[in-house]
C-alpha cells in the first residue's frame, strides 16, 4: 500500500471527466478544425478559467463543509472595485492588492461567523452578503468603469514570469495545486472533511467545528479577492457587474468534480476538471452559434445532469450490492 506525502488519487470520476474532456476536444477538432484549435480560441477558453478556478476552489471547501457560498461573485466585483479605486487614486499597488484580499477574507469570515456561531442557514447568510456587496459596488461606482490603472497593477495579471504563461493562469493554477495538496495534509483544511461529513461526530472527536467553518468561508472569500485582482488587472478596469452568476458556475464545477452538496466529499482535481469541462462546453455551444447568454444556464443544466448521473450510478451500485 503506497502512501506518499503528496499523493493524489485519480478516482473514477476524475478519469471520467478527463475522458469526457478529451473526447469533446477531439470531436471539436474534427468538427470545427482550425476554428476550434486556433490559439485565439484556446485562449478564449482559458481567459475566464483562472477566475473560475479560484472561485470553484473556494466553493469546494464550502461544499465540503456542507454549505454553499452565494456571495463569491459579488465579493469578486466589490474587491475588484476597492482595489481599482485605490490603485487609480495613486495608492501603492501592493496596498491596493492587499486591501482586496483582506476585504474578500473579511466578508468570507463574516459569513462563516454568521453560519457557525449564529446558526444562520448558509444560503441565507451568503445571499444577504451577496446583495450587500453587489449593492455596494454600484454605490461606489454608480455603474461606471474604474479605469486608468497603473501599469504595476495591470502587470500582476497580464505579465508573465514563467514560460510566457500569463500570470493570472499561473497564479490560479499554483493556488489551486497548493490548496489541493494542503487539503490532504494540512490539519485545519483536512478537518473540513470531518466537519462536513458528520458535524456531531467531529465535535465529539474534539475538532473545533466552528473555527473550521469560519476558515472555510474565509478561504472562499479570499479566493474571490484574489480572482478580483486578476480579473480587474487583466481587463484593465473594475466594474460592478463583474462576476455575475459566477457562483452558479463555481457550484456546478465543484459538484461536477465530485463535491457532494450534503458535505464531506470533494476533490480539487475534480473541481479543476469540472471548471475546464464547463468552460469547454460553453465554448462548444458558442462554436455552434449558440448565444453567450446561455452561459449561466449551461452551468445550471450541467449541475442538474451531474447530480442526476450520480443518483443513477448510486442506484445501480445499490442494486448490485443488495
Amino acid at each position, binding site marked *: *500500500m503506497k*502512501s*506518499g*506525502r503528496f*499523493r493524489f488519487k485519480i478516482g473514477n470520476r476524475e478519469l471520467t471527466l478527463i475522458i469526457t474532456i478529451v473526447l469533446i476536444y477531439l470531436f471539436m477538432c474534427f468538427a470545427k478544425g482550425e476554428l476550434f484549435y486556433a490559439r485565439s480560441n484556446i485562449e478564449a477558453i482559458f481567459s475566464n478559467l483562472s477566475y473560475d478556478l479560484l472561485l470553484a476552489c473556494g466553493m469546494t471547501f464550502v461544499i465540503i463543509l456542507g454549505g454553499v457560498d452565494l456571495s463569491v461573485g459579488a465579493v469578486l466585483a466589490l474587491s475588484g472595485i476597492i482595489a481599482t479605486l485605490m490603485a487609480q487614486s495613486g495608492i501603492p499597488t501592493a496596498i491596493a492588492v492587499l486591501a482586496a484580499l483582506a476585504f474578500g477574507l473579511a466578508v468570507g469570515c463574516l459569513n462563516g461567523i454568521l453560519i457557525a456561531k449564529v446558526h444562520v442557514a448558509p444560503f441565507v447568510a451568503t445571499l444577504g452578503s451577496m446583495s450587500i456587496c453587489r449593492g455596494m459596488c454600484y454605490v461606489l461606482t454608480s455603474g461606471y468603469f474604474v479605469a486608468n490603472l497603473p501599469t504595476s497593477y495591470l502587470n500582476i495579471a497580464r505579465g508573465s514570469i514563467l514560460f510566457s504563461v500569463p500570470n493570472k493562469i499561473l497564479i490560479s493554477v499554483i493556488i489551486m495545486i497548493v490548496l489541493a495538496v494542503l487539503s*490532504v*495534509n*494540512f*490539519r*485545519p483544511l*483536512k*478537518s473540513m*472533511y*470531518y466537519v462536513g*461529513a*458528520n458535524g*456531531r*461526530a*467531529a*465535535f*465529539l*472527536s*474534539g*475538532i*473545533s467545528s466552528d473555527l473550521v467553518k469560519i476558515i472555510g468561508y474565509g478561504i472562499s472569500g479570499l479566493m474571490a479577492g484574489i480572482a478580483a485582482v486578476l480579473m480587474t488587472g487583466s481587463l484593465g478596469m473594475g466594474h460592478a457587474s463583474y462576476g455575475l452568476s459566477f457562483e452558479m458556475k463555481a457550484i456546478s464545477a465543484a459538484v461536477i468534480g465530485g463535491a*457532494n452538496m450534503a458535505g*464531506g*466529499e470533494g476533490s480539487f482535481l475534480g473541481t479543476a476538471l469540472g471548471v475546464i469541462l464547463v468552460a469547454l462546453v460553453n465554448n462548444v455551444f458558442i462554436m455552434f452559434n449558440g448565444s453567450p447568454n446561455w452561459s449561466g444556464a449551461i452551468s445550471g443544466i450541467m449541475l442538474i445532469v451531474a447530480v442526476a448521473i450520480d443518483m443513477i450510478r448510486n442506484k445501480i451500485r445499490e442494486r448490485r450490492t443488495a
Partner: protein
Amino acid sequence: MSVLELRNITKSFGANKVLTDVNMKFEEGEIHSIIGENGAGKSTLMKIIGGIYRADSGEVILDGKDVVMHSPIEAYEHGIGIVHQELSIVGNMTVAQNVFVNCEPVYKAGFINWKKMNSEAKAALAEVGADIDPEEIAGNLSVGMQQIVEIAKVIAKKVRILILDEPTSALSDKEVDRLFQILDDLRRKGVSIIFISHKLNEIIRISDKVSVLRDGIRTGTLLRDEMNEPTIIKMMVGRDLGRLYPPRASSRDGEIVLECKGLSLRNKFSNIDFFLKKGEILGVFGLVGAGRTEVALSVFGADNLDSGKVLLNGKSVSFKNPSDAVSHGVCYLSEDRKVAGLFVNMEVRENVVSACLKTVCNKADFLNQGAIGKITQDYINELDVHPSNCSRFRIRNLSGGNQQKILFAKWLAAKPTVLIVDEPTRGVDVGAKSMIHSILRNLAESGMAIMMISSELPEILGVSDRVMVMSEGRKTADFEAEGLTEETVMNAVFNTDGGLR
C-alpha cells in the same frame, strides 16, 4: 375471531434481525401489553402494525383478512391508531389543529370549521380528562401535556385498535392515573388496546394480557391472574448465559482516576455520584431515558452541568468542550456510531485518526500520512478488523461489527486514561460482541479506567466489576458485580418511587 392477529412476523434491518417469527393475537375490548428490554423489538412490531414498516415475512391479519399496509394513512383507514414514542406534535400549531391534523372538520371545499374544530377538540381533550385550551399553541405546553394532546389526537380518530408506545414516560403520576381511566373506558367500549411500556407496575395494573419479547422473539404471553413481577422479569431476561465473558479485574486496588459528585442537569439527571478506578470497569445500567448518556455527555464537555463536581486525578476539572476533555485523556465512545461516532463516507484511516489529528501532525500542522497508515494498520491488526487491508476502505462498506471496532480504534488512538463507552455492542453480531468485551477487559488491565453504559443486562453482569443502576435521572443502586443476578438489578430499576419527572 381475533380483531388483529400477527402470524410469523419477521423483520431485519440489514444484517440485524429484529423480529423472528412473532405470533400474537389481539382481542376486542382487552388491554394487551407488550414488554421487553430495549431493542427487544417492541417498537418495530408496533410500526409494522401501524403501516410504517413492512414485515419481511409473515402476515398481519385484520378481522380474519390478510392485509398489507403501505403507510400510516392506510392503517388509519383500517381503524388502527398509534400514539408514538417520539412526540408527533407540531409545536407551532394550536392544540386543536394538532388533534385534528389531516382530518379537520370542514365545510364544503375544504374550509375548516374552526368553531366546530375547537369545540370538538375541547370535547376530545375532556374525554382524556385534560383541561387544555384548544387554541393554545401546542409548543407552549409541557411535554406531559403534549403527550396528552397526542393521545387525544389518536382517540379522536375513533380507532378500533389503539397502540400506545411508552405513553407514560413523560406523565406525572396523576396524569398516569387519568390515562388509565381513559384506557379502561375505551376497553369497555370495545376498543382493543396495545400498550407498550417499560414500567412493570403499570403493566400489571392495567393489562388483561401481557406478552414478553426478548431479542425479537416472543417468550410467552401471560393472562391477568398469572402476572407477577418475578415471572415477567424472568421471561424478559432469562436467556442462556452460555456465552463466555472475559475474567474480571485482576486487581481491585487501583487509584481513583475520575470522581463525580452531585452532578445535576435540569430535566435530565440529578445528584449523580460515581467514581472510576484504574483497572476497573464500571457498568452503568438503566433503560432508555434513564439519563445515562446525558451524564456521560456532560462529563465529557459536550453538554452543560447545572451543578456538581468532576475530579480528574484528584483535581477539579470542568471541560468546556469535547476537545478539552480529549486532551485531558477523557474519551467518550458514543452510542450511535453512525450519527455521532464515525464518518461513514470517509476512509477507515481517516476515521481512526479523527480524534487524535493533533498527535499525527508535525509542528507545522501537516499530517504525517506514514504515521497515519501505521497507526491504522496497527489497530486493524490488534482489533482483528476484517478485511485486514481495509485501511483505505470507506466505513460504509464494512460490517457493523467491524465498524464498531474502528470506532474503538478511533478512541484508543487518542490514548485515553478514562474511557466512557456507550452501548459498545449495539448492532454487532455475537462474535464481534465477545471480541469487544475482551478488548474492554484488556484495556482495563492495561491501566485504563472504563465506564460502560449498556442496556443489555448480561453484558453488564458479565463484563463489569461494579454496577451502577440509573432510573429516571437518578442513581438507584450500586452493586459489586460478583455474584449479582439479573433479578436484583431489574428490581433496582423498577423499584423507584417517584422519579425526577
